[in-house]
C-alpha cells in the first residue's frame, strides 16, 4: 500500500511524463486513490504497470460506480496490485454523463490486462459504459435483448409492490 507521501510521489512522476493525466489523489482509510483523466487512462495504467519501481502488474478488479447526482457522474475503478510488495492502488477514471442518446466512452484496457475483458463487459452490461477497443463488447449477464442499464441510479428498481394487510390498513 503506498502511503500518502508515496501516492504523491507517484502522482508527481506521472505528471512529469504526462501532464494533466492525474486530476486528484485521495488517501482515506489506508487506501490510495489516483483520480485520473478518463482520456488518459491507458497512459496511466501502462505507466503503473511498466514503469520501473512501480510494476502494478495485476488488475485485481475492474468495476464502475454511478455517483448521481455528482458531476461527473460515472467512475470506472481499476484495482491494481503489486504482488511483490503486496501494494494495492486504486485508479479512478471519471466519466461525464453523455445524455440520453449517447453512452459514455473510455478506452478498453484489455490489451494491458487481459483479465479485464469480462469485467469490462459486465460494466457495459450494467452501466452502459462503452469501452473503446474491446474485442467483444456485448451483454454478459443480462439477456441480449435487455433494454436499459440497470445499475444506474436513475434506473427503476423494478419488482412489484406487495400490499401487506398492515400497510393497507394503516396507510392504504
Amino acid at each position, binding site marked *: 500500500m503506498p502511503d500518502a507521501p508515496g501516492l504523491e510521489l507517484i502522482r508527481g512522476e506521472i505528471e512529469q511524463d504526462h501532464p494533466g493525466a492525474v486530476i486528484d489523489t485521495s488517501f482515506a482509510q489506508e487506501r490510495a486513490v489516483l483520480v485520473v483523466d478518463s482520456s488518459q487512462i491507458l497512459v496511466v495504467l501502462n505507466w503503473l504497470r511498466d514503469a520501473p519501481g512501480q510494476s502494478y502488474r495485476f488488475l485485481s478488479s475492474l468495476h464502475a460506480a454511478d455517483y448521481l447526482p455528482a458531476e461527473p457522474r460515472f467512475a470506472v475503478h481499476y484495482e491494481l496490485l503489486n504482488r511483490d510488495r503486496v501494494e494495492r492502488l486504486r485508479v479512478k477514471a471519471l466519466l461525464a454523463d453523455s445524455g440520453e442518446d449517447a453512452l459514455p466512452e473510455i478506452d478498453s484496457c484489455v490489451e494491458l490486462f487481459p483479465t479485464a475483458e469480462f469485467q469490462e463487459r459486465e460494466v457495459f452490461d450494467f452501466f452502459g459504459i462503452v469501452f473503446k477497443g474491446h474485442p467483444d463488447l456485448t451483454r454478459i*449477464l*443480462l*439477456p441480449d435483448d*435487455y433494454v*436499459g442499464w*440497470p445499475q444506474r441510479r436513475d*434506473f*427503476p*428498481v*423494478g*419488482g*412489484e409492490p*406487495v400490499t401487506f394487510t398492515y400497510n393497507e390498513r394503516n396507510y392504504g
Partner: protein
Amino acid sequence: MRSRQLRARDMLRGDLEGDELERYVEEKVVMTNFDKMLGWARSNSIFPLTFGLACCAIEGIPMAAVTARYDIARFGAEAGRASPRQADLIILSGRVSIKMAPIIRRLYDQMLEPKWAISMGACSSSGGMFSNYAVVQGADKFMPIDVHVPGCPPRPEAVLYGFTKLQRKIQGNPDQGWRARYGAHGTEEWARGGPRSEPSTEAAEAYETARKLIGA
C-alpha cells in the same frame, strides 16, 4: 396377521366356501373406476426432473428428496430424471431470473403429458426478496404452477406436504384449464412410438384446434 395368512391359504386350497368366501372377497377387493386407479398410479410414481435453480436446490431438495430422514421415496418419487422428456414433475427451487425463464419454459414444454410443477420457496412463487429488475416476480407468470410451497427456504416437511398436496391434485381432476390461460395450445408433447401411445381424444382435439388457430 397369522390368521389372515391361514385364511389366504385356505382360500387358495379351495377350502373357503359360501358366506366365508363372500366375506373374504369383500375384504380383499376394492371397487373403483379406471380414472381413479390411473390417478392413484400416477400420483405414486412421479419422476421429478433433476433440476435446481438457486439456494432452495441446495437446501431443500437434498434434504427433502435424497436424505434418509425425509426421504421422498416414501411417496414414490425418488427417481430423479436428468432429461425433461422422462420427467413429469419440475420443482422450481429458487429465484427465476429473467434470463432463465425462457429456458425453464422450454424445459416445461419438453416434458411429456401429464406434467406438473411445484414452485418451491418464496422466490419462485412471488419473487421473494428479489423485488428487482432481474428476477421474474413469480414463476406462474410464464408457466402453470400446480403447488406453491412458501418458505425461505421451506422446511423439508413443507416440501413434502406440498408434494402430498400435489398427489391429491393428481388423484382428483388435474385439468385446471391452464392451457387456455397460458396460451399453450399446440405445445403438447406426447410419448409416441406405438399404437397405444396416442394422446387422449381431448388432447388431440385441442392440438388440432390450436393448429387451426395459428393457421398451420
